[in-house]
């Protein structure tokens, strides 16, 4: 089996979970990776301070799309204030594959937009 394109990564890429738009929503953000043109947006509906529903939308490579899909399953139910403290390792560990420096931004784009929606901090996660 391929070390990067593992079955579950390709499964999330081809059948991404929690993709689409959400109307109405309470939080949103949209961003892109200037290196490759990948783009991703997020809509979040908040209930009792927690992520009640979340949808990603956009287009990109297998790593960026799978990262969003896998992260979405963890993010639903999470207190919104906890999102700001998530870091790069959180996503990389969730992906479960080793990410080369050239693909790092692909993997981190989903967390970048989610943190942007939750906290307004649009910087790249470290």
């Amino acid at each position, binding site marked *: 089996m391929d070390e990067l394109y593992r079955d579950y990564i390709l499964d999330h890429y081809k059948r991404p979970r929690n993709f689409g738009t959400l109307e109405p929503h309470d939080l949103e953000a949209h961003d892109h990776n200037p290196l490759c*043109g990948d783009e991703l947006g997020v809509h979040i509906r908040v209930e009792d301070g927690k992520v009640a529903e979340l949808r990603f939308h956009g287009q990109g490579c297998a790593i960026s799309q799978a990262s969003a899909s896998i992260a979405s399953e963890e993010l639903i139910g999470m207190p919104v204030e906890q999102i700001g403290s998530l870091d790069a390792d959180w996503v990389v560990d969730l992906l479960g594959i080793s990410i080369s420096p050239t693909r790092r931004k692909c993997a981190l784009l989903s967390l970048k937009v989610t943190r942007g929606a939750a906290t307004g901090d649009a910087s790249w996660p470290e």
Partner: protein
Amino acid sequence: MAPFATSLDVRADFPLFDRGLAYLDSAATSQKPREVIEAMDSYYRCSNANVHRGVYKLAQEATDLFEGARERVARFAGSEAATTIFTRNATEAINLVAYAWGREHVGEGDEVLITQMEHHSNIVPWQMLCSERGATLRYLHVSDEGLLSLEELDEVLAEGRVKLVSVVHVSNVLGTVNPVAEIAARARAAGAVSVIDGSQAMPQMAVDVAEIGADFYAWTGHKALGPTGIGVLHGRRELLESMRPFLGGGDMIASVGFDSSTYNELPWKFEAGTSAIAEGVGLGAAIDYLDRIGMGTVRAHERDLTHYTLERLGEIDGLRTFGPGDLDVRGGVVSFEVDGIHPHDLAELCDREGVCIRSGHHCAQPLMRELGVPATARASFHVYNNHEDVDRLAEALKGAREVFGL
């Protein structure tokens, strides 16, 4: 001209290929032949001094090497030394025109006309100029075949507001070879100045800037087997003489007083500060190398590789190529996409097989939007490539489809 296989086999001249790579990204930058590397090495070892200054022999030797390179570069391009300005790259050459000509002649209500297939380097300087001067930036459309329409050009010019037309000679995404002599002639007839971005053209075909007749022609050394850090702007003498300098500093002046200065003659008026001397020498060596092969042979070789690539990629299910089908108007670039696999993932899987292709927007985001894709994969060629490189690409792409379960 039918596609035909050439017997060009010069890979051994390029030390990097000791790594065994199928390098298919020459539209981004070319590899360098040994004699370019050696010319620069030898310059630093044996002849290094600042140019245009010292009276000692060493300084004269450095000046002769640098100015000798300029003369050969000028001859190679069908220009002359006085109107051949060394810049950092094609981007700086275009910015020079936008700054030194554009700011003096483009004003409120005027228009600058470019095309949808431009590289960012031939978009952003004009956006900056237009926003500063209250002018409008307009774009000629690109057809589904990847071609421009001269009729549309005529229509826009006939409106009478265009002050400057800037067009790419060979597209770095589509490979389209644009009819730049026609475009320059029509611009002139309409009273507009013309600029051609020849970054992809000069490295792969015989270009005679005098014959093309544009007012400015910009290109860069590193795509033409030369080093990075040196580009070229050929300009029409009357325009260059009437223009204000671009950057101020040493070397570009005739005399400096406390309040004002008089400027040096062409081409040095536009070359402030110490030049990229070793890079100029390296570019001279690259031109000598290309001259020896002959640009007709270079073009035939790239045409053959493009033909073979279109044929091999045509075998792959779900693969779509972009750009003109007619090889007479197409250079050595093939952009493509594969259904179900993002270009980024294609490039990663090709890399595992030692095949270097580009993925992304190729610094042409407006064109990507026009093509309706977020990104493409791209293979591009130069003299050192061969059919085996293309075979390796085709196999790597088939392997990528297997990894993705397609």
